[in-house]
């Protein structure tokens, strides 16, 4: 099977869906790539090169380059979706959610409900999130929790290239507004990705490792760190279930609870705030629904409750690292009543 990067997998998903269905359009800042500079259009293919090649193939009626107006992008996409198009709108950095959030959570998320099911909103908001690339406090946040909390939105957090392609195709075909959160740390990572079109269902967690001592749930790139930790601990005879929920809404609660019922111990990792984050949410679900199975307190490993520092050393300290995950696993294992 061919090896593709996360970036290529996302690009391929969009290109293949656009070829299969001419209702699929792309809209966003710099999605044509290189607009406004001296070079050719498509010179860059977007700020991260994810939409490269789409503009030359599908033209400016389907790959719509916009001014820097996130609110207009989301509003246009939400309106277009009601008319039957299937827009894939790009929110360049998830940090910019604030300037367009009304269009997403008050409009796109609520059309179907408020209009009694007479209207659907089949749009995708692709956005990139995540720290570690020295982007500073306004270009590094993962705000997955802010969209996960909104009823009417579906939220996808692909953690590898294979999942990215299958989940994005599912997102484009879905008839509701889907927020597709790309971890920018992963664009250069690669794995085997089929050339064919395939879908991965929402709400189906993926077990990356299986074990019996501790359940580790990781959101976005943190799950890859959890896998590395689990593999190291396996050499000591400690075995972990490492669960990637793939989508935070809908969330495969059942898979997490079932795993905790067999291990009795839970470590939840995300790169969000410790309060009201996805890790906090999963912790509360397990505490409510699997309390009797717990043999140790649930341990969250999250970012610090502070803006993301620009100083590299401070940013590294702010982020959940493998060592933090390992310490948490050892802590829950060492717990005795």
């Amino acid at each position, binding site marked *: 099977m061919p090896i593709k990067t996360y970036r290529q997998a996302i690009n391929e998903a969009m290109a293949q869906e656009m070829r299969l269905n001419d209702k699929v359009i792309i809209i966003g800042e710099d999605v044509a790539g290189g607009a406004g500079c001296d070079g050719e259009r498509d010179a860059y293919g977007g700020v991260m090169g994810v939409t490269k090649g789409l503009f030359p193939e599908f033209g400016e009626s389907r790959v719509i380059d916009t001014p820097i107006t996130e609110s207009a992008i989301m509003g246009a996409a939400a309106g277009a979706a009601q008319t039957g198009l299937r827009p894939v709108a790009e929110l360049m950095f998830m940090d910019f959610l604030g300037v367009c959030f009304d269009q997403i959570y008050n409009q796109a998320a609520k059309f179907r409900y408020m209009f009694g099911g007479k209207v659907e909103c089949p749009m995708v908001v692709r956005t990139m999130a995540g720290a570690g690339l020295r982007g500073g406090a306004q270009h590094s946040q993962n705000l997955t929790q802010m969209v996960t909390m909104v009823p009417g939105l579906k939220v996808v957090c692909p953690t590898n290239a294979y999942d990215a392609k299958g989940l994005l195709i599912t997102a484009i075909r879905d008839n509701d507004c889907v927020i597709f959160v790309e971890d920018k740390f992963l664009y250069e990572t690669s794995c085997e990705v089929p050339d064919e079109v395939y879908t991965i*269902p929402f*709400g*189906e*967690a993926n*077990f*990356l*490792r*299986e*074990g*019996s*001592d*501790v359940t580790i749930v990781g959101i976005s790139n943190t799950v890859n760190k959890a*896998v590395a930790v*689990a*593999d190291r601990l*396996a*050499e*000591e*005879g*400690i*075995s972990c*279930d490492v669960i990637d929920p793939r989508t935070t809404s809908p969330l*495969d609660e*059942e*898979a997490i609870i*079932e*795993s*905790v*019922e*067999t*291990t*009795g*111990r839970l470590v939840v990792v995300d790169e969000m705030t410790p309060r009201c984050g996805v890790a906090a949410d999963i912790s509360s679900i397990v505490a409510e629904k699997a309390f009797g*199975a*717990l*043999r140790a307190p649930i341990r969250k490993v999250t970012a610090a409750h502070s803006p993301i520092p620009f100083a590299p050393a401070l940013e590294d300290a702010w982020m959940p690292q493998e060592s933090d995950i390992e310490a948490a696993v*050892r802590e829950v*294992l*060492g717990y*005795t*009543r």
Partner: protein
Amino acid sequence: MSTLHALTVPKWGMSMEEGEITEWRVSVGDKLAVGDELVDIETSKIINAAESPFAGTLVRVVGEAGQTLKVGSLLGVIAQGDATDAEINEFIAAFVPDASGASLAQASDAKAPVAATAEAAPAAVRTPAVSAAPAATGALSQGPDDTDVNASAVARRIAKAHNINLHNVPATGRNGRVSKHDVEQAGGIRIVAQAVASVATGASNEPQRSTADDSHIASTPVARRMARTLNINLNDVTPTGKRGRVSKEDIERSAVSATGVAFYREQKLSGMRKTIAARLSESKQTIPHYRVSVDIEIDSLLQQRAYMNKTLGHKISVNDFVIKACASALAQVPEVNVQYTGECIRQFDQADISMAVAVKGGLITPVIRNAGAKGLPQIAAESSDLARRAQAGSLAVEEFEGGTFSISNLGMYGVDQFDAIINLPQAAILAVAAGVKKPIVRGDSIAAATVMRVSLSADHRAIDGAVSAQFLQALKGFLENPASMLL
């Protein structure tokens, strides 16, 4: 096509640099499985059997019995498939030793099992079944391949462990998926987490509980309230709070012990610990030990020692007197200065006295050679030097090997008496307790004397009881009349 594997001298412990081949347990041509014991190797500390890390046929023995080889040196060659002599010779010629000695596992040193490591194959899943249900037989296990059945990861895992075909399980889970609950229902089982993880476990012991009044024990109000709720008596709690009060934390700690969960850590066996374990187990299990003890009055000895040290400026310990006296007694009763070899009894002409020295993590027995020919100041100088360097770990092998008789002295801890285990291949060891002032009957009256009890452990195969008694009699004579050692 054949594959050749090198068997090399393993590294048992940090200090091991070489090993002597004592005996091959297999011969050329033998078929070997992984884990078969191949060859006994002796180091300065231990004899152990090396296990085969490979399956195949032993095609060549390179290291012969009696040879001493560096760690990582070639011991032999194992082939998988047919190998010609030329191929084997070429393999041996091309062999480069690796001093880490990693290719041969020690018999007792099995590595911890490694769980799932490869993404493609999440292997070795231990199913933590508390209610261990019997594997499903009959109808539940029958059916076509169930890999395509939509089931949750945990449900699939449990079904596999209990031999349940997922086709036979009604799916009621999320989106028509077979859930853990579905499998449990179908199989009549219930899977719950282990109370204690497979690692970091706790051991239990029944705690002693007081019933005495504890109202006078200083305690914080919260701690007292908790103690009452938890039925903990404050007499049983070690106070660590401010001004010696029992704190909430102290109660919590006490509650942990009351629930029977004690903490423990596992410490890897050091090379020294392994040697002590092997040697003393062998001694205790194979030697018919018996013990004879006697009280020795040492007032005269202490008086002369005080004169030697204070007036003459020596630094002679009571133990130095014991070493000297043992050497003198061994000269008088040489039947105790022996070793039992199986074929004969070896009787030594001189007394090389091994003295047990406690060091960090174990003990070691440096030797005072020919102690009978040495004066007390020389014995004192040697023994303090050996003890100091034993603590520092800088003894040379020849300084702690050999020895014909051992002394173990716990007098400095004030013990009344104890027995020692014979230090193989020797046949006797003297256990020396503290010298304590005691009332003794002398004639028809009671007098005070400083009494030191010694206990001789002897190997009955070589030394009979009467001989031991004669030895102790001689020893008592020398220690009670130190001047007689001059004779």
